[in-house]
């Protein structure tokens, strides 16, 4: 980009001094964390001859431990889809706590429209609706799920934009409403036995492909479209955005709608992968999604962050989770360690911000 090499008024700036992208820091952190687990694996006495990253027993064609890598990415991709939406909400200066329960509620509703009539020749024991709802084309549950997500997101966004209540409170209320709805839908009973077509959505590595595909789409949207620019502008200085003629209220509704639709889509993929829907699905997902975004450098004060960062944050999250299991850390301590890591990520972000502020 030659035209940006010179400033205006004859001033020049040093091309090499261009700011170091934050995403690179997260990528380096990812490498460091992998290295730490690899070293721990080699040195801890009870870890006989296991490698975190590499194929130490000749089970795979490549040098990597493919099974572990596959599990890591599969593990994070469904929550990662939610994190893509949460990223946009946080960049716009808000927060969305309702995404986890929304996964539960959407899974219950969607699965009710995806059931087969006969299971091994017998009537479906988990049937929710009557005859009309069996063996529907796969598009119908998908559309129902996305519309439900859009409605919940529109309610969240409208409350936040027009009544000016804090996003934390609005989405906390929606958190409870959605979890309650998930439980009330079948009085707590699971919904199962989806159609063949529905099971294809989340089969095998499909969640990973959805995650990567949606990440690419939203990376482009956030970076190159008007929607993206206004999302950053509102998170950066809401008054300035309003003074500049941006319809802040309408934009916020749109951001929350997109976030909830992504969470609803994650629910579709998850219920398809698990072949069942339960009202307890998605517990802690909202927090994990926020954690992925924050680890990925999305600033909780709004205005800063990126989809690439969140994808890297999701990878860090997955690697840490998998690494804890690899070094046989007790499951109870895993949760505690995860909490500590999230706090450190936020503290690091704060330090980074303050350093940036004192530089000028």
């Amino acid at each position, binding site marked *: 980009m030659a*035209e*940006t090499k010179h*400033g*205006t*008024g*004859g*001033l*020049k*700036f040093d091309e090499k001094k*261009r*700011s170091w992208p934050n995403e690179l820091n997260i990528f380096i952190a990812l490498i460091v964390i992998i290295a730490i687990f690899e070293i721990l694996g080699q040195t801890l006495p009870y870890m006989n001859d296991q490698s975190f990253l590499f194929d130490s027993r000749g089970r795979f064609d490549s040098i990597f431990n493919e099974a572990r890598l596959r599990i890591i990415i599969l593990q994070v991709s469904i929550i990662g889809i939610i994190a893509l939406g949460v990223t946009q909400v946080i960049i716009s200066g808000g927060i969305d706590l309702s995404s986890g329960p929304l996964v539960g509620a959407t899974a219950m509703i969607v699965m009710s429209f995806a059931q087969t009539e006969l299971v091994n020749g017998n009537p479906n024991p988990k049937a929710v609706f009557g005859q009309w709802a069996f063996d529907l084309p796969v598009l119908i549950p998908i559309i129902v799920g996305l519309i439900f997500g859009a409605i919940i997101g529109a309610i969240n966004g409208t409350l936040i934009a027009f009544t000016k209540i804090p996003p934390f409170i609005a989405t906390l209320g929606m958190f409870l409403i959605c979890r309650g709805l998930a439980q009330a839908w079948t009085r707590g009973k699971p919904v199962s036995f989806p159609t063949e077509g529905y099971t294809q959505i989340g089969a095998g590595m499909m969640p990973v492909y959805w995650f990567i595909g949606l990440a690419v789409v939203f990376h482009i*949207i956030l970076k*190159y*479209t*008007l*929607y993206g*620019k*206004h999302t*950053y*502008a509102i*998170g*950066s*200085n809401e*008054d*300035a*955005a*309003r*003074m*500049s*003629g*941006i319809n802040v209220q309408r*934009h916020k509704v*749109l951001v929350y709608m997109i976030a909830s639709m992504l969470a609803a889509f994650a629910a579709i993929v998850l219920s398809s992968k698990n072949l069942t829907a339960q009202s307890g699905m998605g517990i802690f997902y909202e927090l994990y999604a926020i954690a992925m975004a924050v680890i990925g450098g999305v600033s909780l004060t709004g*205005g*800063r962050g990126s989809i690439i960062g969140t994808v890297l944050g999701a990878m860090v999250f997955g690697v840490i989770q998998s690494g804890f299991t690899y070094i046989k850390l007790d499951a109870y301590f895993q949760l505690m360690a995860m909490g500590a890591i999230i706090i450190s990520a936020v503290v690091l972000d704060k330090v980074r911000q303050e350093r*940036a*502020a004192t*530089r*000028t």
Partner: protein
Amino acid sequence: MSDIILETKSLTKHYGGVHALTDANFELHKGEHVAIMGDNGAGKSTFVRQITGVEQRTSGTIIFDGKEVHFSGPIQAREAGIETVFQTLALADDLDVPDNLFLGREKTKLDWLGPFRFLDYKGMREATLAGLEKTAVKIPNIRNTIRNMSGGQRQCVAIARTATFPSKLTIMDEPTAALGVQETEQVENIIRTLKEAGEPLILISHNMRQVMDLVDRIVVFRRGRIVANLKKEETDGQDVVAYITGAKTAPEYEGAA
């Protein structure tokens, strides 16, 4: 008659019992640069806030570009052609210079995509460079975010924003109050550029040298009223100060304050 771009007739604003602005009769001609001076609390900013629709006036009329106007907010005023640089800068810290210049009026491509239409980054960058060159603003790297800029650079970006787009009237509320010598000079250069382009300006300032340097006419406010309307050639610094402090009141405003 059509020479007048802005006219206010007995513009009045009360905050509860406080008469912040009383019976302000003001005229601005096309291409004219007018300074508004006065002590703190004299009603200068209040006057501007009524014109730009940031606040709603208590009574009086505003005639802009030949039509009586009732702006419900600053956006409407801007759409009508009034560009304002507020004391608190309306910039988004995490965006770079072109993004801020074009905030709310971005150049876009593929407009059928609605809110997801693509930004014309190249077009905006080129227009930004052209706009900054035109106003002689010095910014080393326009891709830098506002967060990483000095106060003077920020102010220049805010002013360049109003100067880049054609407008019928520009209002600046103490644009150089927080700036150093060099930065002040830059801002003053922008104002001279506007003068050459024939764009009318209302400048609120405390800086006597600056006012004497830049504008054609000085309007003095005191305790919510206009107390003097002075052509630059017919006055000097001491004279203006006399009006500001209340030692003098122009004969036509006798009994005002």
